C-alpha cells in the first residue's frame, strides 16, 4: 500500500467515524431519540454488574447523564401544579422544579431497576413532519399479560425534542401529581409543598443509604 492510498484510507476511516457519530440532538426525530436513548440505557444497565446487583446511586448517575437532558422538568412541574404554578414566585418555581425532579428521578430509577428482559416494541410515530408536539409510543411486552404502553409526550424546543409527560398504562405521571400537589398547596401554601417534597426526598435518600 503506497502512502497516498494509506492516507486516503485513513481519511476515509476518520470521515466514516464522523458520520457514524450521532447527529446533534435537535436534528433527531423524537421517536428515534426515544429509541436510541432507551436502547443505550438498557444496554448500559445489562453490562453493569454493580447496577444489576442494586447500586441505586450508580443507576441514578446513569439516568442523570443519559436520560435527564431530554426532559423538560420546568414544564412537567408547571403541568403537575396546574393553577398553583401561577401563584409561585421565581425562587419557589426553581425549588419546586428541583425537588420534583429529584423525586421523579428516584421513581424512574425504581421502575428501571424492576425492568428485567421484557421485549420493547417501538411504535412508528404518527405525526406530520411539521408537528411540534407529539406522542412517542413504546410498549413493554410480556407473555401472558397485556402489553404495557408507555407514551412520551414530547415538544420541540430550540434544544431539541423534550419530554414533558410520561404516561404508563394510560396513567399520566404529571396529571397524577396534580391532586396531591394542590391538596398540599391549599393546606400549607407553595412553601409547604416545597418543604413536603424536600422531606420526602430526604427520607427516600436515607432509606437508600441504609440498604
Amino acid at each position, binding site marked *: 500500500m503506497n502512502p497516498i492510498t494509506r492516507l486516503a484510507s485513513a481519511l476515509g476511516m476518520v470521515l466514516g467515524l464522523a458520520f457514524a457519530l450521532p447527529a446533534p440532538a435537535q436534528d433527531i426525530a423524537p421517536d428515534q431519540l426515544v429509541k436510541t436513548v432507551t436502547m443505550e440505557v438498557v444496554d448500559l444497565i445489562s453490562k453493569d454488574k454493580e447496577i444489576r446487583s442494586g447500586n441505586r446511586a450508580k443507576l441514578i448517575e446513569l439516568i442523570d447523564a443519559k436520560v435527564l437532558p431530554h426532559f423538560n422538568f420546568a414544564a412537567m412541574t408547571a403541568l403537575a401544579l396546574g393553577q398553583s404554578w401561577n401563584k409561585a414566585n421565581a425562587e419557589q418555581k426553581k425549588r419546586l422544579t428541583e425537588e420534583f425532579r429529584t423525586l421523579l428521578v428516584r421513581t424512574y430509577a425504581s421502575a428501571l431497576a424492576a425492568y428485567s428482559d421484557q421485549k420493547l416494541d417501538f411504535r412508528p410515530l404518527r405525526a406530520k413532519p411539521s408537528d411540534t408536539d407529539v406522542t412517542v409510543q413504546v410498549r413493554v411486552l410480556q407473555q401472558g399479560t397485556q402489553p404495557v404502553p408507555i407514551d412520551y409526550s414530547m415538544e420541540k424546543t430550540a434544544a431539541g425534542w423534550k419530554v414533558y409527560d410520561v404516561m404508563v398504562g394510560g396513567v399520566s405521571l404529571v396529571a397524577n401529581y396534580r*391532586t396531591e400537589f394542590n391538596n398540599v398547596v391549599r393546606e400549607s401554601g407553595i412553601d409547604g409543598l416545597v418543604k413536603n417534597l424536600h422531606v420526602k426526598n430526604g427520607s427516600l435518600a436515607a432509606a437508600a443509604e441504609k440498604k
Partner: protein
Amino acid sequence: MRCWVLIAALAAGCATTGEGDPRDPLEGINRGIYRFNDKVDQAVAKPVATAYRKAVPGEIRDRVRNFFGNLGDVFIGVNNFLQGKFADGANDWARVAFNTTIGLLGIHDVATDMGYEKHNEDFGQTFGRWGAGSGPYLVLPFLGSSTLRDGLGTSIDMYTDPLGEVRGYHTQYGLWGLRLTQTRADLLEASRILEEAALDKYVFQRDAYLQRRRSLVYDGRPPREKEPEDEPDNKAR
C-alpha cells in the same frame, strides 16, 4: 356481612372534613377501608407473595400466570363481543383455543407468539363502553380500588369466574389462593414504586386507578379531558 358493617362504621368515625374531591364523596370511609386493606396486605398478602417469589422460579411463575390468564381470556372475549368489538373477541377466543391445546391447558402462551395479543377487558369496562359513568370512587374491603360501576362489574366478573365451576372446595380455594398470590407477586414492584412516588398514597393510588380505568374503557385512546382551570397560563420553559 356483619364485619363489613362494623368496618364501615369504624371508618366513618375517621371521616376527614374539608374540601373533598367530587369524584370521591365517601373519602372518609374509603380511607378507613384503605388502611384496613393495607394492614391485611402488610400482614398476609405481601409476605406470602414475597416468599412465593423467592421460592418459585420465574419460569414456573410464568406458567402459573399464563394458566390463569388463559381462563380469563374466555370472558375477556365475551366482554369484547358485548362491546361490539367482534374482531377482538374472536382474537381472544382464538387465544383460548390455541393456548388450551398446543399451549397445554394454557401454561404456555403460544397465541402471543402467533400474533394473537392479549387484551384487558371486564364487565366494568363493558358498562363504561355502553356509556355508564364511573360513579363515586370506592375502596372495597380486600379488593381495593373500585368505583360504583366497576364494583358492579367485579361482582359479575366473580360470578362468571371459571374457577367457580371447579368441583371440590380444597381445589377451588387452592386455585383462588394461588391466583391471588401470583397477582400480588406481579405487583410487588408497582407497590414499592407507589410507596416511593406518592406524597399521599391514598390520593396517588385513587387518581392512578381512575386514570387507568378511563384509559381501559377507551382501549388506551380516551378522548382528551379539557381542564382549562387546571392549565397554568404560561408553561415554564
